[in-house]
Each structure stands twice: as structure tokens, then as C-alpha cells.
């Protein structure tokens, strides 16, 4: 109630609070946490993929390419487009190394 939800990141062992109506990515960013890379913040680029292991959340619109319905079903979602309804336990998959145009 006004205090927000508790998000536990099993990958790092860290945790943070996500306010009601706030996306998980935004809550991470506001605390300077770098659990997942921050991309477009609009559900379009697929950069902020996480796995939700426990808890309920609401989804905003996400690119079907990066978050197909089957994946969303299994909790593979985009952190910038999920809004917790309960406390969450998440995992942040390791990101593939970035290859700059070199």
C-alpha cells in the first residue's frame, strides 16, 4: 500500500522496491542497479529480458519478436514492460557479449 513491492533478484542476491505502477526496469534504474541492460524502455528492443520465477504482474505492450506469448506465459518478460502486483522473485539471464561495429 503505497510502499510498493519487493523484488528479489536471484541472480545477484540483491533486492529493490518497485512502486505501484512503476516498471521493474525503472525501479532498477532509479536505484542505479545494473541487473539488465537498459535499452529502449518501450518493450521494443528486447534488451531488458528477465525471468519472473514467482509473483504476479501486469504486462504492458511488448514486441512479439522479443516476448512471444509462449515466453510470457513462462515468465520470460521485458523488465521495462512489467508492473508488479505482488512481490516478485526474478532472474536476470547473462547477456551475450556486445559486438561493436569494429
Amino acid at each position: 500500500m503505497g510502499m510498493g513491492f519487493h523484488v528479489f533478484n536471484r541472480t545477484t542476491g540483491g533486492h529493490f522496491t518497485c512502486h505501484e505502477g512503476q516498471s521493474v526496469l525503472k525501479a532498477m534504474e532509479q536505484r542505479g542497479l545494473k541487473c539488465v541492460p537498459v535499452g529502449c524502455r518501450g518493450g521494443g528492443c528486447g534488451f531488458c529480458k528477465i525471468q519472473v520465477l514467482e509473483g504476479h504482474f501486469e504486462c504492458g505492450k511488448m514486441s512479439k519478436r522479443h516476448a512471444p506469448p509462449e515466453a510470457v506465459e513462462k515468465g520470460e518478460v521485458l523488465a521495462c514492460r512489467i508492473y508488479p502486483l505482488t512481490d516478485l522473485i526474478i532472474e536476470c539471464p547473462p547477456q551475450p557479449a556486445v559486438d561493436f561495429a569494429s
Partner: protein
Amino acid sequence: MKKGVIRPGHVQIRVLDMDAAVKHYADLMGLIETDRDDQGRVYLKAWSEVDKFSVVLREADEPGCDFMGFKVLDEEVLVQLEKDLVDYGVEVEQVRAEELKDCGRRVRFTVPSGHAFELYADKLYTGKWGLSSVNPEAWPRGLRGMKAVRFDHCLFYGPELAATYDVFVNVLGFDLVEQVLDPEGTRVAQFLTVSMKEHDVAFIHHEEKGKFHHASFHLETWDDVLRAADLITMTDTSIDIGPTRHGLTHGKTIYFFDPSGNRNEVFCGGDYFYPDHKPVTWKTEELGKAIFYHDRVLNERFMTVLT
């Protein structure tokens, strides 16, 4: 050598949520909604443009760019360029007049980088928004947000830059204004123009075909870019980077994202081009400075976040 392509004419952008997108492009960026069609597409233009629309938004379940269109001088040029494309081995597709409202027939083709482009000769001439063509005032009142002046260019990411260059330069008459070369001398970025602008379209090498990096809109001054940055904060819009300056083109710029994750740019300034100018070269060793002249380091998000 000029072959009758005159300028960027439109871009069709896929968005996840139309209402949010219209709010972004109209209220924040200051484009003017000019029409909608029975497919639910929304047509917009920037105030200084003379034709009816330059941005078309289409709701889809994946963001990105459907195509970018260039206007050509007249139907005769369109017929000639269509023939030249076919002779060069490019497959062309006919898009009937009125498929986009108030736009004539379009010739669509996909270049080797995987991006779709169109040529067209006719679109309804509505004149600059809010201004008379006789004794016009300096600018129209009633503009919103960033007051974008015109749709300016797009940057695309994809493979096969050399083959893409051939279509644009050899067939369509674009000029190479700036390039980035890797240590082996391979071109990994190309900025192409049909005008005096330092780019009308640009490509950066990327393994995956057909990716969209940004659509860009022109502003008049650095102060306007700073004001755009203020508006991005006021509206809690997703920012990418800026305000800053590019090494490439030397434009003063800011990048941000629409609500579906498509990147936008508003910018001012930048170099100019005449057909006797030789291409400007940047080396990948200095890519950081080439892209962000002040930071002089690459920003991972800028290089890899695409729709």
C-alpha cells in the same frame, strides 16, 4: 550524379500502441496529424513540409520501420528509375495510388541491407502548415512540443553495405558524403545524400538484416535541441543520449525513444554537401569520437538497441 530523386518523402513506422504513439509524435514532437485511413494508420507531417504527410504510424505487434519513401521529380523520372532498378537486377513491387491516402503510385524495392524503400512522384500538396504561401509569417502559431520542422532522414542497420551503396549511388544517383572505414578499408558506415544535406539516408553495418536505428527530424537551433531535452524530461520520455554533437556530419543532436521503443532524433546544424565534395572518412579506431564528439566513447545502447 542526380537522377531525379529529390528528397526523403515519408517513413512508415510500426508502433505497439497507436494512442501512445500519436501522443508522442504529435504532442511531444510537434508533428501535425493530417489524416487516418481504414487500416487505422495515422498520417502526420511537420509544419514546414509542403506535402500532406511524411510520417505514417501503423499499429503492429512488433515495432520497427516498414519502409522509407523518396519523392522523385515527376512521373517520367519514376518510370525511368523503375526501369533502371529492374535493369540493375532489383526486384520492384508496384503499390497502387491511394494505398496511402492522397499519394500517387509507389515503386517499392528492398535493398541488400534488408530495408524496403519506395519512390513516388505525387502526393497531395497542402503547403506549409498554418502559413500562407503569399507573404508568409516566419512560423505558424499553435505548434506543440518540440515543434519539429521537417522529417529529415533515417539511419538503418544491416549487412551488405557495398551492395546497398551500389543501388543508391549507381542507380538512384545518391552521393556518398561520409563514411567509416575499418582497418582493412571496408566501409562499415555510409551517409548518403540527394541534396545539400549531409545525409538523407544512412546505413551502419550490422549482421541482422532490416533493422531500424532512428528517424530524424530537423530543428532550427541548439536552443531548440536543449528545449527538446527539457520536454523529454518533463514527459518522462525514454532518453538515449544527448544533447551532444556528432563527429560524423557534426550535427547537434539528442536521441530518445517513442513508446514502442523506436528511436527518434531531433537535431540542428551539421555540414553541407555540394557534388564536388569528396567523401569525409572516419576510421573505426576513432568511432567513439565519430559518433559522440564530446564523450569520445561508444555508448553500447546507441550501437545495439534497434527495432
